[in-house]
């Protein structure tokens, strides 16, 4: 092992003197203004059209990671076409900015895959406006998630609480 590096420490303030500085830095780094969380586009569409599920990002993107450069030639092509034609900008992270273009797609009864069911009606039914895929046929996460109810945050909260209590008891016993 190379021990030379261990002696390269420079003369820094002792921990106690440095503590206020470190705490201030830590707070500056970790504590920020309240997050202005941007609701994702799929959730916005699901709520707006009462879709049977929140669709995967692949409704519009080539992969579930999304991104401004990976659009599919599907429903999103219709959406971007009318947005561009009408001068509406769809802003990244701002699903509300889709509303004018969505209204136009609906009023024009656009039908990307020409199956005689309009794009918006397909969204409402949970089918892909740009093809034949089922939008709700997406991976489910968690043990047994294909058959268990969608979520149980209360049960998880109880588990976390029980775990915390046991941790505290365990530490007290060690002392």
């Amino acid at each position: 092992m190379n021990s030379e590096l261990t002696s390269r420490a420079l003369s820094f303030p002792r921990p106690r003197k440095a503590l206020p500085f470190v705490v201030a830095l830590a707070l500056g780094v970790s504590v920020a203004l309240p997050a202005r969380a941007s609701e994702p586009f799929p959730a916005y569409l699901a709520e707006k059209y009462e879709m049977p599920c929140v669709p995967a990002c692949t409704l519009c993107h080539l992969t579930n990671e999304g991104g401004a450069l990976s659009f599919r030639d599907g429903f999103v092509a219709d959406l971007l076409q009318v947005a561009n034609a009408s001068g509406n900008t769809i802003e990244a992270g701002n699903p509300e900015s889709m509303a004018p273009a969505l209204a136009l797609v609906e009023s024009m009864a656009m039908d990307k895959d020409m199956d005689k069911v309009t794009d918006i009606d397909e969204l409402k039914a949970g089918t892909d406006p740009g093809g034949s895929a089922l939008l709700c046929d997406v991976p489910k996460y968690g043990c047994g998630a294909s058959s268990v109810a969608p979520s149980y945050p209360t049960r998880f909260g109880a588990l976390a609480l029980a775990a915390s209590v046991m941790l505290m008891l365990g530490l007290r016993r060690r002392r």
Partner: protein
Amino acid sequence: MTNGSSRRSVPTFCRIFAWVIPLILVLFAPSRADAYTWMIRHSYTGCGICHADPSGGEVLTAYGRAQSDLLLSMKWGKGESAEPSSASNFLGFVDLPPEVMLGGSTRLATTVKDGELRAFPMQMDLYGQFRFGDFFMGGNAGAARVAVGSPHARAAQVTTGQGKEFNMISRNHYLGLDLAEGSYTVRAGRLNLPFGIRIPEHTARVREVTRTDRESDQQHGLALAYNSETARGEIMAIAGNYQINPDKYRERGYSFFFELMALDRTAIGLSSLYTYAKTDRSSLEDNVARGAHGGFLRTAIGDPFALLLEMNLLTNSTTKLGYVGFMQGDYEIVQGLHALATLELVNQGLPKSQPDLAPSPGLGELQAGGWLSAAWFLFPHLDVRIDAIIRQEEPFMLLSQLHVYL
């Protein structure tokens, strides 16, 4: 479907796991979820001496905790010491027996992107490993809350919330056996995929695109690791991620790396991964066989500088050939304070299903990116890190992290 049938269809091991592992881990539990591959500058070529995982990451051994104090943390004016301080112990004061390795990590992060400031818990994990002679068992339990469609955390969920609520996660859980005095290690369970350089930057393109990060890309399977002074490697038969349902989304195949010590502080390696899934969980395309195959290099140039390099060819039955790689230089300004520069290159290949799609950076043509980072290991249980990340055609992002570990 009725509740009764739902309960019956949940795999028994999952139900047991959901209760037993967190209790075990909390009773005996949590270590830092890091692997610092630039430790090669200290002639540490292998990982198993400091980490419970023979290929690096997560739980620290007692020796690893000591080296964390002696070689990683800032000295604050203290002279060289051959003995680690007691502060490097679990929770700062619990001197655990060598058979028990415990740890935990909380990582608070902020991002500034497109002028928007966000703060969020990036990691809340407990870790543990317990040894009984040559046998051992270990794992991790934590909590995560991500948006629908997020590529992060979902694949490690234990609880089944599909929305933007907190879920319990487990990135690793395994049983293992050391053979030939620890030269070989067999493990079965949910494991980090043995592939490439195990860096802590889980959003690095090279880890994201190959799906080999330690954030949630682990898979269930059986792995055999080999470690010696001149070579190390690990091969894993991937049985699929049983925390993703239904079965058609599970990838099965293999993953391995093999690394040779070329010089005292230089190692070169090869890695390869190939999986098949009936439906790809990201693109939702059917019958997807994907692979990544390439080489990597770790070397120390002088005492304070370490260089990491990895380049992989990407194969995918639904896209044209692609590639992904990175080069990272780590300069230790003084012990505990690091400056890092990273270059990323990626082209995932155009999708075959859309031949008319114009190439764009990252899809059909090169996308370059760069990171400028500073990591400061303030004390044995506390470090901070700031990354300025710029990628072609993507907004600039400033990421900061405060990391506390037990």
